[in-house]
């Protein structure tokens, strides 16, 4: 099992450019999440999805968009990149809403906007 796969691992963007961070899981998890982690800070939820075709905003959604056309994939789109979006981005998935299930995390994407 690959678990949660994120690509790319590193990326440098210029201000105003756009890009898509890819996330795929092979565990048939319904729930998928995007978090960002700023230096010295905890993870903040950007967007999440409870199943194919269903997405919802988290704590810090501005400047991002998501889609969930399949159970496996949950890409995060950055439009008009800004320096404030410099961060490490984590995708995660979960089997169930039952709380005792933890998340499975990807290895992260380090994004720098210059």
């Amino acid at each position, binding site marked *: 099992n690959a678990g949660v796969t994120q690509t790319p691992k590193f990326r440098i963007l210029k201000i105003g450019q756009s890009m898509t961070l890819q996330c795929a899981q092979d565990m048939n998890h319904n729930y998928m999440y995007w*978090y960002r982690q700023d230096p010295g800070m905890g993870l*903040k939820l950007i967007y999440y999805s409870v199943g194919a075709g269903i997405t919802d905003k988290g704590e810090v959604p501005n400047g991002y968009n998501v889609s969930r056309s399949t159970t496996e994939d949950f890409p995060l789109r950055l439009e008009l990149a800004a320096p404030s979006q410099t961060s*490490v981005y984590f995708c995660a998935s979960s089997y169930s809403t*039952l*709380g005792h299930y933890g998340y499975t995390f990807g290895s992260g994407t380090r994004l720098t906007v210059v």
Partner: protein
Amino acid sequence: AQTVTQSQPEMSVQEAETVTLSCTYDTSESDYYLFWYKQPPSRQMILVIRQEAYKQQNATENRFSVNFQKAAKSFSLKISDSQLGDAAMYFCAYRSLAGNKLVFGAGTILRVKS
């Protein structure tokens, strides 16, 4: 909204000694789940231990144990016989009973001295 507070930005421990990382949280719910995640320099998020709020018994996983004080809304992590491989950022996280979102604290960097 629930919040999670980790008041120790950094902690140090001598190899083979015991260290306790603190976490407090704020919630109006009576049933929920609490987690400790480890993030080594590789950035991978690893679930260390989980606790169900309705269980009075503290969770234990090998050298890792928690001290769960529900009334005080406190959830500390004790690492016994610390090893060099324990050096990492540790995050405390909260999840509602039927919720699908993890709320993270800001993290504690643990350094292990040889």
